């Protein structure tokens, strides 16, 4: 395939061009309630062409080989239009020419597991919640996505990499006939099928929680001091802070760019944040990004000071900063954009029990249920939570959404625990879906968090 891609690229007259071809195979086993409604395992494929001409970058995605000339013509025309309209001039930061074929050794290659065994395991986990009172429905999906990527550039890079992502995940719904409650559940990762085995306890725990939520008290809207558990603190790190360490989200926003200048004290001194796609056995692992750059860890926040950001080759040049291999595409439908790999708050020395004592009275909020950010402002939901009284975790609460301002919140972090945990499901929907976006944190305390509530 590499040779075929090289022959296509040889027809291009421009400053720079790269061509990526992918075969994406997705195995899906879908349970809706106790019914199995789909089993599919289909390969799809496609190309992504990027061309720089007259300091303008244009990209075209296409399905059929015979559409290459049409795609090339479109890309060149669009680049010329951008150049003539005095768009933002594009240059790439220099990068080493790399030739490599990387295939991660998996702990049980899912392609070696029969579809029958995958169905049986998914059915087994799907049946667990129904042993708990008041569980009325489950939506549980086995998903195995393999991206087999081939990349060549006119600079001479020739790469192939295979990424395999597996998970069994979904939602559990309880009902008492009057209201319904929902929690998410899931196990998975990027290092093979083994991580999916012997995970019954995750499904038991979540089923018990969603059953109890039926009798939980809805939270009243207001301002609270809160402890976020690792999942929720991870979402906060990803949504509220992480996106603004992505250079493409701030480069054309002058007010955000001014605030996100390197060296700015953005948060409390105990706060350290890193993005590290090289962490082994984590969902966010990859070796090369979709521009052919080897990924490296990036310290983003050190002692509360902004010290790094995530880049593509284009933004690295525009910011005069170093490339770090964070430009990733969902698949062959898209040119790559800047993404987090594995972003996390680095742990401190405080135990969770000590955090509860520091909090005294407030809320303990657990497990993410989606989030979104807009400039300095963010919102994310918790699946459930507890009141904390005199440093003790007490009654269950529900209907919890948190909203806040990034900079105020980074300065309202009162304490960080020593119990870092990374998510197994993750995901991010910044224009494209990145199912391997991984995030996590230790427990943290945030003062004065705004919580929405219907009461």
């Amino acid at each position, binding site marked *: 395939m590499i040779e075929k891609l090289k022959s296509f690229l040889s027809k291009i007259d421009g400053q720079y061009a790269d061509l990526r071809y992918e075969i994406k195979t997705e195995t899906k086993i879908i349970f*809706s309630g106790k019914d*199995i*409604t*789909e*089993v*599919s*395992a*289909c390969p*799809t*494929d496609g190309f992504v062409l990027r061309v720089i001409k007259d300091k303008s970058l*244009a990209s*075209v*995605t*296409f*399905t*059929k080989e015979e559409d290459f000339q049409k795609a090339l013509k*479109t890309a060149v*025309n*669009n*680049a010329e*239009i*951008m150049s003539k309209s005095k*768009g*933002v001039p594009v240059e790439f930061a220099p990068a080493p020419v790399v030739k490599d074929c990387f295939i991660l050794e998996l702990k049980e290659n899912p392609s070696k597991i029969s*579809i029958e065994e995958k*169905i049986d395991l998914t059915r087994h986990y799907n049946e667990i919640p129904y042993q708990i009172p008041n569980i*009325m*429905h489950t939506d549980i999906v086995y998903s195995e996505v393999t991206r087999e990527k081939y990349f060549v550039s006119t600079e001479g890079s020739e790469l192939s990499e295979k990424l395999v992502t597996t998970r069994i995940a979904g939602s559990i719904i309880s009902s008492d006939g009057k209201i319904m*409650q*929902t929690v998410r559940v899931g196990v998975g990762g990027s290092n093979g099928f083994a991580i999916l085995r012997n995970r019954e306890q995750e499904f038991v725990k979540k089923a018990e929680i969603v059953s109890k939520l039926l009798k939980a008290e809805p939270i009243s*809207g*207001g301002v609270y001091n809160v402890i976020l558990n690792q999942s929720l603190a991870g979402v906060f790190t990803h949504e509220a802070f992480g996106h603004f360490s992505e250079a493409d989200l701030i*480069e*054309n*926003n*002058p007010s955000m760019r001014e605030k996100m200048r390197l060296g700015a004290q953005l948060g409390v001194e105990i706060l350290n944040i890193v993005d590290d796609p090289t962490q082994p056995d984590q969902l966010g692992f990859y070796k090369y990004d979709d521009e052919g750059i080897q990924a490296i860890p990036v310290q983003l926040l050190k002692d509360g000071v902004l010290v790094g950001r995530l880049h593509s080759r284009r933004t690295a040049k525009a910011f005069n900063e170093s490339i770090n291999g964070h430009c990733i595409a969902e698949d062959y*439908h*898209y040119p790559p954009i800047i993404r987090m790999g594995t972003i996390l708050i680095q742990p401190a020395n405080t135990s969770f029990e000590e955090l509860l004592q520091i909090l005294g009275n407030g809320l303990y909020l657990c497990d993410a249920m*989606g*989030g*979104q950010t*807009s*400039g*300095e*402002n*963010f*919102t*994310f*939901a918790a699946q459930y939570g507890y009141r904390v009284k005199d440093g003790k975790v007490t009654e269950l609460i529900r*209907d919890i*959404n948190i*909203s*806040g301002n990034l900079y105020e919140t980074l300065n309202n972090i009162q304490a960080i625990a020593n119990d870092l945990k990374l998510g197994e499901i993750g995901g991010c*929907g910044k224009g*494209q*879906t990145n199912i391997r976006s991984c995030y996590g944190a230790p427990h943290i305390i945030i003062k*004065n968090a705004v919580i*929405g*509530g*219907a009461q």
Partner: protein
Amino acid sequence: MKDLLSFVKKQVDQAELYYYQSVYNGVEYQNGKLNEIEGTIQCGYSLRIIKDNTLGFAYTKNLNSPELFLSGALSSLKAGTKTNLRFSESQNKFVLKTYEPEIGDLNSKKVVKECNRVIKILKEKLNTKIDIHLIYGTEEINIINTNGAELSSRFSYYLFLCSVVFPHTAGGLDYILKDKKFSPVPDSDLSDLIKMYYQAKPEQKLKSGRIKVLFLPITLYTVLWRLISGTAGHNIYYKKSPLINKIGEKIFSEKLTIYEDPHYDAYPFARTFDDEGTETKRFMIVENGVLKNFYYDLFYADKMGTRSTGNGYKNIMRGSEIAALKPVPSLEHITIKPGEKNLKEIINLMDRGIIVAGVLGAHSGNIPNGDFSVGIEPCLYVEKGQILGRVKNTMIAGNIYDVMKNVVEVEDKLYPAIMSGKALPAILFDDIMVVSA
């Protein structure tokens, strides 16, 4: 496609082949400058088969091997998904105006010229960040099956979204234009956008409490997603809806009439058949506050012993591969009947309240139960019928089956919508809990 269907037909009881082709360009301006033009030339095939009352499914992008394609669908029979559904027998009986030939002459040069014109007008009046996202292109759908259905539709579209962003945010006032061909933004619309920006620019403080809340059309998906969940055929079948056994009951204010209108072809993507070839129709979901219908695809209609409402769509939320999706019950053309007051008259009804011009987190929370709890960005503050500015760090929360009983007024005009909805007005609700820092 016919050859492939003939090949498949020999080994199954029923088969359905779906093909799509999509060609478009996306033009993006950031902070008033042309940032990107992306081209897309995509196609794909889906195959559904029924053998011994069991449903199978496969998809591919490049049809290199019909044998492998069929083999994928036959393998999927292992799921044992039982059904008595029969694929559609319908033919194209009437035609909607979904394709404007002049889209073929449209190019990025003309589109860029129009964007530059809009940017120039806005920049003369506004010293702020202006972003534009514009997509134009064509799409084609073909469905054939072993029951004789042979359907095709071609669509053209031109979607223009402009955001005037407030400082220190990524959120702003949004303007949407949808057409089936090139369509310049009217100067009067830009004047309205500029006027509202200046009204909303000063920062204000808001005391938390229960007040009037006006959802602009672009944010109504917050509540509509919960209704779409509650009336979906699959959620009715699995009893995942608070609306079970409530057909004929008054669930919302009598001022609300909400219907599916797939034949409304002033905007792109009107449909005479859904993604499984069933003829579509206009029908009520809620009429004068009374729940009238749920909506179904073929699979769940069969499960429920009823007929498909023509709502089996490959429900694409974000960038998914269309061919990889099976049809599910989906409301693709939701419309709300306009009221009798214009936007200015409705704002005049607000002694104290907020205007929801953008939301954060509408996809999170307990959607099946109808709950919502969202951040508002931007959140415009209104006092005595006047927009006085905007408030930061504000949330609203509630349950749609309470909130939508408290409709004060529905606007008399429909606008093109995003996310969910085809043509929507602004709606003013009373007594919604608002929390502000």
